[in-house]
């Protein structure tokens, strides 16, 4: 992957002037206000590569203390740019430019005329087939991200799912990053929530990473997001970044190469694993290989707990849940009205929940279901494919 050296302040070329004689900078921009990161992406779209985008971000981070590059991983068997454009066009203006340097890389210019919002994002092929990254300088708390990106990703999700990480998986990602970069990660803002109160808790006090995770564990908190600074032994600031439960990353500064190679790649691997674990067809599931969520301990132990799980699922505004049997084993059917996915949920062991997807069932819907269970009911993780024998060994006395 070649690195496209992009210098926003010198070499940026306006979209309509691309290939023409150089135009004085003063005519292109108000010299007091250099082009935004997004504007540069758009202007140099034809020359962009993944590495080029990241080095551009590193450059911007040096000039602008508030600069943030968001990286949102998604899974799609085909190039998702066309789908993004088709769905986005239903309520936004969407223009696209493709890179001649890297196949599959598309820059999007998104506008919401009514709200007078405008922003840029790029869809970039990931390291593995099927993995894609949406990168943008829109801050995730901004109205731009909220109106230009989020609703389109949401509409796409049945065909282009994302994934989520348990708190212990997030811990693994961050400890691995510490080891591979030989740095100490110091958490900045840490956001978590409690399964019972659903309140968001922030930890502002600076403490080592392992202490933060120990506290999350002891208080049974679910980690939502964590910002951190990676500092080398010599005191050099190597990376300032963030990660959240939905595998969304923030790059704030430091080595963009380290960010890409050690953090982005870690979530790419986990996204692929997540999707593979959930992409089970109904026939496979019914042949003894359901999708299994394994709880950390026995939780479906009585009628009250089983009913609590049903209520946790049924209280979502986009889901209908029907209980066929509640106790001592649990059998419910669930339909997700976001995309019409249907599935059966079955628990005959207090420590696991099996999902048998219907013929119409998206990975995103199963992922959302498990996310709901994990975040609002009890801790656990998605198990590797489970084989439940249908042989008659223990039928009988």
């Amino acid at each position: 992957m070649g690195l496209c050296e992009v210098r926003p302040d010198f070499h940026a070329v306006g979209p309509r002037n691309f290939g023409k004689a150089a135009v004085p900078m003063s005519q292109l921009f108000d010299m007091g206000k250099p082009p935004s990161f997004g504007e540069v992406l758009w202007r140099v779209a034809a020359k962009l590569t993944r590495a080029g985008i990241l080095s551009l971000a590193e450059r911007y981070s040096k000039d602008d203390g508030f600069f943030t590059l968001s990286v949102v991983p998604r899974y799609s068997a085909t190039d998702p740019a066309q789908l993004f454009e088709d769905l986005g066009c239903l309520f936004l203006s969407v223009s696209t430019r493709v890179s001649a340097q890297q196949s599959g890389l598309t820059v999007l210019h998104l506008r919401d005329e009514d709200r007078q919002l405008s922003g840029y994002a790029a869809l970039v092929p990931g390291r593995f087939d099927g993995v894609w990254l949406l990168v943008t300088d829109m801050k995730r708390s901004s109205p731009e991200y909220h109106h230009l990106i989020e609703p389109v990703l949401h509409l796409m999700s049945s065909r282009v799912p994302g994934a989520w990480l348990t708190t212990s998986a997030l811990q693994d990602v961050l400890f691995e990053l510490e080891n591979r970069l030989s740095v100490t990660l110091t958490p900045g803002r840490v956001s978590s929530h409690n399964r019972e109160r659903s309140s968001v808790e922030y930890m502002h006090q600076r403490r080592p990473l392992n202490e933060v995770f120990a506290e999350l564990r002891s208080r049974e908190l679910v980690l939502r997001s964590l910002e951190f600074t990676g500092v080398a032994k010599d005191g050099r600031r190597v990376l300032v970044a963030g990660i959240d439960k939905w595998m969304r990353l923030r790059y704030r500064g430091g080595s963009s190469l380290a960010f890409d190679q050690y953090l982005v790649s870690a979530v790419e691997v986990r996204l692929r694993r997540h999707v593979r674990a959930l992409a089970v067809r109904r026939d496979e599931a019914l042949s003894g290989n359901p999708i299994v969520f394994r709880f950390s301990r026995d939780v479906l132990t009585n009628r009250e707990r089983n009913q609590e799980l049903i209520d946790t699922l049924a209280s979502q505004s986009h889901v209908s849940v029907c209980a066929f049997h509640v106790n001592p084993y649990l059998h419910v059917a669930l339909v997700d009205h976001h995309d019409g996915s249907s599935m059966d949920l079955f628990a005959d062991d207090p420590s696991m929940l099996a999902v048998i997807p219907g013929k119409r069932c998206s990975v995103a819907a199963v992922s959302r279901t498990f996310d709901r269970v994990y975040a609002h009911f009890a801790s656990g993780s998605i198990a590797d494919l489970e084989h439940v024998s249908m042989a008659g060994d223990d039928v009988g006395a």
Partner: protein
Amino acid sequence: MSPWLVTMSAHKSVTHGTREGVADDYSTYDQSVEIVGCWHSWFSDIDEAAFDHFPTITINGRECTPDFLVSFAKGYCLIGELCRLSMNDDGLKDSVLQALGYADFASQTDVMMLVPHDYADQAERRMLDAGLLHADAEDEPLVVLSYVRVDADRVTRWVFKRPSPIRAFSFRDAFLGARSLHEKMTVTLEGLKVPPKFWRNMKIRYPFCNDAPPPLYTACVLWEKVFSAMLSDADYVNARVKRLPHIRLTVTPTSVREALREQLDIEVKVAWLRDALELLARARLAEQPKKSADDFVIKYGKITVPGSGHSETHELILDRLFGATSSGGNAVPQVEQDQLFPDPPALN
């Protein structure tokens, strides 16, 4: 009509007209689905056996629909019938005669009469006392088995047994060796204990058994597994972009049957579906523009009943049929049919 053709099945829908009655029918049918699933699972492991989950057979010129039929390569047949026996003499006699009548299906046919454990022993004794069965007769094809779900252990099980050892003769399936039900039920008396892992997939694959389901049960299966697949991706996108409170889906019993076959690979009777659609219309979750026509417009989405203490589809439909009562017992005003979503799904 000869007496044995009177339907006396356990799960025949008997809508009592009260919320409790309808809810009981719903869970009784669900149990029947599990029980038939247990037997389907058992026989699917036996190579010589072909299990028919929805048999329609002709006996002496009449069409009958027992709960299941197992045909074996050697010509032996086993018919299963779930019965919740009437305790009055005529009702008992009718049920037994019906089951005995099934034995006329083919020369080597046994009939498994499945009776709830609570009164299986008493029922078998009364059959003997009434002369409907005989303790020493070798050629009587009817075998009474009791069924019960045992929930005491960590893993729940359905248990099938002979209610008593009075009759030494039973299934003529010695050719199955270790898998012979005669051996398990009558010789060793060990019975069959079936944990969920053996029937859960059958239950999901076959959410119906051969008797007419209660309309509420069918309506729930349609709401959870069938209607959603009758809509396209574009319908869902449109609903979200336009923030529709629900999606209007026009169906007929026949179109629903096609969709159900597509999604679940099973064939059900059009009449079952019509009953369920009419129930949804009564619950104001569907409209029937012309009462005489077969067109129904489903208002599809999450069902909500403000003030209801319930969250599950079957309870919410009951709330809409009978008027909701919150867990505190306060009556909740009936809900207008267009308020299916509490809040339109937010898009942006």
